[in-house]
């Protein structure tokens, strides 16, 4: 039997059947957590963001516009929460971090921190958050240009130019990694 789609679950939730919210958690907890993790590169911060995203989604479910995809709405909250956290963190930590380490904070408790993956993650953290968001959503969350436009609230043309620019920067940062 196929799972009910998001619109059906949202409608049930709004009718008062709050138990269906657990299905949203099962469906989206992992992708939301990974999107947040790639945005902020910190396991605990990604956990906090994921929690905030679902709590906000719960509180604001009435404001969700079913014309859009539900996951786009969740991803938008995730990106905004990540950008907010990065802004707060930037003022407090970035100055010290740049002076002392000149590298992003390492992620905690992740088992596969080796080789090119680490280089790619470090390169991602050197991008502007707006550029990082578009690359992560495209390459890791598998969003289309249209999804990206909806999530980031920018025209598709801007999505493309931002994505192309982000890739140019990543190619520069990872120039040693490509085989001729």
């Amino acid at each position, binding site marked *: 039997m196929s799972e009910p789609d998001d619109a059906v679950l949202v409608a049930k939730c709004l009718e008062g059947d709050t138990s269906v*919210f657990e299905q949203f958690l099962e469906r989206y907890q992992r992708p939301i957590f990974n999107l947040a993790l790639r945005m902020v590169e910190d396991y605990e911060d990604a*956990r906090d963001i994921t929690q905030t995203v679902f709590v906000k989604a719960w509180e604001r479910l009435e404001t969700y516009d079913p014309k859009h995809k539900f996951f786009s709405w969740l991803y938008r909250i995730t990106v905004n929460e990540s950008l907010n956290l990065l802004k707060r963190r930037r003022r407090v930590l970035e100055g010290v971090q740049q002076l002392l380490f000149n590298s992003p904070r390492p992620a905690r408790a992740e088992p596969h921190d080796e080789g090119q993956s680490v280089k790619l993650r470090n390169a991602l953290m050197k991008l502007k958050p707006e550029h990082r968001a578009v690359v992560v959503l495209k390459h890791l969350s598998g969003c289309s240009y249209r999804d990206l436009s909806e999530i980031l609230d920018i025209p598709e043309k801007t999505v493309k130019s931002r994505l192309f620019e982000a890739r140019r920067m990543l190619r520069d940062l990872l120039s040693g990694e490509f085989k001729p």
Partner: protein
Amino acid sequence: MTMIEKRYLELIHKEIDGENSPEETTALRGYISSNQSARELFEELQQLSGLFNQLEETAPPEDLGKSILSDIQGRPDRRTAEVFRLERATVKMSAWKWAYAFAAGLILGALLAPLALHLWQGNSSPGFSQLLGTLSRKDVLRGAAVNGSVKGEGVTGGIQIKRSNTLLLIELDITSRQPVEMVIQHDANRLRFKGLEQSGDEALYFQSLPEQLTWTHQGHEHYRILMACSNQGAPAIRMKVLLSGNPLYEGSFPLPMSP
């Protein structure tokens, strides 16, 4: 080194993103077979795209789902939360919106003045609760006030509390070197949150529960918190400034007597 035409540059990126139509893919293949720079760029972007496949998904913390559900269950009903947000949005207006509200209030005041005069002369002046809105803040400003200071490790500031018969205005001027959590605890039977206004445009995470207000703070901000208050006695409010859950400051402030 050969140049890459703009149209094909876009098609290369779209091909990597899986957004090309079959016709566009065919056109691109023909182009890169005859243009070395285009071919090299396409291959580099393919490798870059392949690098992302090496990034493995990370499992969220095992207790995260439970923690979210528990958080949600401990919150007010979604509709209640919506009302709080509406109230907050009403009060958290930028200066120009206040100006519009003030102008509208003046016009409304002029229109209603004859009626108010009539009611006053008839010794049946309307209660303050009926005048909530443009005039309410003015009335609060005329009320009695309590002043205090906030001082903790890395946190300084001042607090002023004013009240009328039905409203309480808490003005907080806080400076903190670090991102902290502000907490105001109050008696839910006597005080009810109406709105929060901040001086800056720093994003804050704000939460209103029946007996407690919490929000994130960093740097210097001036806050105005408006609460509806009952006329029974004058309970104190309790204020905390927390850093990662640890208190940097804790204090109680008595509420002024109603005027």
